[in-house]
């Protein structure tokens, strides 16, 4: 998926447990785990706001855009 979730990195840096973040944000630990793995369909702004507020970070610290490799670009480079 082009959107990379770097929540696990922020959690480790801030030394926050997933269980505590889930309780603070109001989502289940299972959903938080899915979010960390990037296996969710989408993220509500309200959830993103709650996470940023709890971890004292910016949305950009949690989400990273990684463009997928385009085969036409590779052939041009060759």
């Amino acid at each position, binding site marked *: 998926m082009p959107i990379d979730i770097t929540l696990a990195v922020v959690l480790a840096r801030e030394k926050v447990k997933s269980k505590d973040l889930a309780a603070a944000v109001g*989502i289940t630990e299972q*959903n*938080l785990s*899915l*979010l960390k793995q990037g296996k*969710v*369909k*989408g*993220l*509500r702004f309200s*959830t993103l706001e709650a996470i940023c507020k709890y971890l004292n970070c910016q949305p950009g610290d949690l989400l990273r855009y990684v463009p997928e490799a385009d085969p036409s670009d590779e052939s041009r480079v060759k």
Partner: protein
Amino acid sequence: MSSDRLARLAQRMALATLALTVLMLVLNAAAWLVPGLAGSDGAGLAFSLSNSLLAQAAVDPQHFPWWQQLGAVLLSSVPLLVLTYGLMHLRALFGGYARGEYFAPTAASHMEATGRSVAYWVLANTLCEPLLSAWTTMNAPVGQRFVSVSIESSAIVALFLAGCVIVIARVLSRASELDRENRQFV
């Protein structure tokens, strides 16, 4: 209505559906086997196809040989068995609702099966009527034998409602897809 009350209501509807199904099949068979339950001067405990035929003076199951009675029971049960298939799906639908599975994909498929079953029940009634009328009057005196074919307004209404239920089931299927997608948002 609270979720608990809704679940209890759905559970009761599931039980009522099962009771209706069993009663329907038993009474239909009994109408042909037990004198006085149906017919023009009977207790009126017969269903659709059986009821319309037992109301005919030429059809007197009391004087049928056992094989003719059995054949009448089986032929008249065919449309009811088709309807039973749909009623079992309806019971399963209520069972799912009782467990809170409002947007499960199976709910939509149960509802569509129920609608299809009602449509096929109307068709089966129409097809079995000439067969049953011929079967029940084949031993009647000459001039009293008949083959009956009919399409009643109630059948048209039932077909229309069956179509509506099928369309609503398709909408419910789409709703369950949206619900599943929505659940993947955190």
